[in-house]
């Protein structure tokens, strides 16, 4: 089983970060108030931000290690990323979007693997569409297919459900939970919504002011909330179903 280890204590840009966690088979959920540094942590893992102290590694091999002067360029880290608004390339059709990240020299091979990735997410029929013609839920599946088509070693998602209408969120959330369980790849998600934490059933890491203030399963957080933010976050839980 793959493991993504993050241990960063230092400043990255203007933000001071003190975050350590390990993501494995179960999704890891980063929660915290706005401006707490959740997205910055994703950027550190991707390699878009370099902290002045810290280490990020995948299966023990360093992607970033300040002391050992290792900094694998982000285009070679092979970490799939789904940003909040999905960032589909508007000038390419769905197939072109998904094929973009397939590392194969031949066009036919890239397209074949892109179609495979689309089929795995039940959106093969959208291949010829343009991103502007997709619904929010479809965009999310295409963005996920694009992130996965190159067979990444880990997956990061920044508020994958925030851009969706409330009416479709529940279905997309269930779909995403099933997929992530099937993938069993180190996955880090940023979320604002306690319903995501309930459905995705992962470990939570609460970040406030750039530092981890609490971690554990949702039930642990609910039983002993350490901060006001955690108290408010768990208060949004749905009633336990009978």
């Amino acid at each position: 089983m793959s493991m993504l280890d993050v241990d960063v204590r230092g400043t990255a840009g203007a933000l001071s970060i003190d975050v350590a966690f390990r993501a494995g088979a179960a999704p890891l959920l980063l929660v915290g108030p706005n401006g707490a540094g959740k997205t910055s942590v994703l950027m550190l893992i991707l390699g878009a931000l370099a902290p002045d102290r810290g280490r990020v590694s995948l299966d023990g091999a360093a992607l970033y290690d300040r002391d050992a002067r290792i900094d694998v360029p982000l285009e070679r880290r092979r970490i799939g990323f789904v940003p909040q608004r999905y960032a589909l390339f508007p000038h390419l059709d769905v197939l072109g979007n998904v094929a973009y990240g397939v590392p194969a020299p031949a066009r036919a091979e890239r397209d074949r693997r892109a179609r495979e990735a689309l089929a795995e997410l039940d959106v093969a029929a959208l291949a010829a569409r343009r991103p502007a013609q997709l619904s929010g839920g479809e965009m999310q599946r295409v963005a996920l297919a694009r992130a996965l088509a190159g067979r990444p070693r880990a997956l990061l998602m920044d508020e994958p459900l925030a851009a969706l209408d409330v009416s479709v969120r529940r279905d997309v959330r269930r779909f995403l939970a099933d997929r992530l369980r099937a993938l069993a790849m180190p996955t880090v998600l940023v979320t604002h919504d306690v319903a995501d934490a309930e459905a995705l059933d992962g470990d939570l890491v609460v970040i406030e002011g750039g530092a981890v203030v609490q971690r554990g399963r949702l039930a642990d957080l609910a039983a002993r909330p350490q901060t006001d933010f955690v108290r408010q976050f768990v208060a949004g839980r749905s009633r336990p179903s009978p």
Partner: protein
Amino acid sequence: MPEQVTDTPPPRAWRDRLVAIAWPAALGSLSGALLLLVLLPIAGLLFTSSPGRLLRGLADPLVAPAIRLTIVTTIASLGLIVVCGTPLAWVIARRRNRLWRVLETVIQLPVVLPPAVAGVALLLAFGRRGLLGPGLAVFGVGLPFSTAAVVLAQSFVAAPFYVQAAVAAFRRLDADLVLVARTLGASWPRVFFTVAVPLSWPALAGGAALSWARALGEFGATLMFAGNLTGRTQTLPLTIYTALESDLQTAQSLSIVLVAVAFALLVAIRAGARR
């Protein structure tokens, strides 16, 4: 007290009536004056001749070489501007330190510089006694009064229009698209050619059209730096200037050609901007 509420004071009503008359009158006469200032000369160009005389004007022996030279030099200038200006704009758009901000301002300077100043500046840089003159002379290259000088003068004055449009387009590019492309394994050159340029294409084309129009009209810097030699440095604007001394008809015919080209470009740019 109630009569104070219902009674409108008379001076107020008088002023309202004056404003109701004077404001539209002022708007109409002032904007009409400026519109006339622009439209009358165009009308003068178009309506003071006949189609037959206009065609005869174009038969002047100066015209054919000037058209050929203008097409060749403006295409060369535009090529130079696009090939070098696109990477420059990319760098300016992505660097946020002070040096690049200063360079961004400097590259815009030719827009506000008087063309005569541009001509002197080009002579002092590439002329026989300019900064690079002696160095160029070693290789047997004399730039002033050559077709290459025309291209340099046009590029100097026209480049800012393209670079400015390209910088603005690259800055508008969604940063997430660039980030995602890189997480998908794309190198910087691949991001540039497959994401940045295709998405900025309409703005780049608009900037190129503006730049070309500016190069097409270049007169002052060309006259001073490249001279006025038929077939070598005499572009259409210089031909108009030369013809004016002998045959007003030729000057007018060529002017109408340039107006038509400029108007077509303007319409195309505006149509492109709306898309």
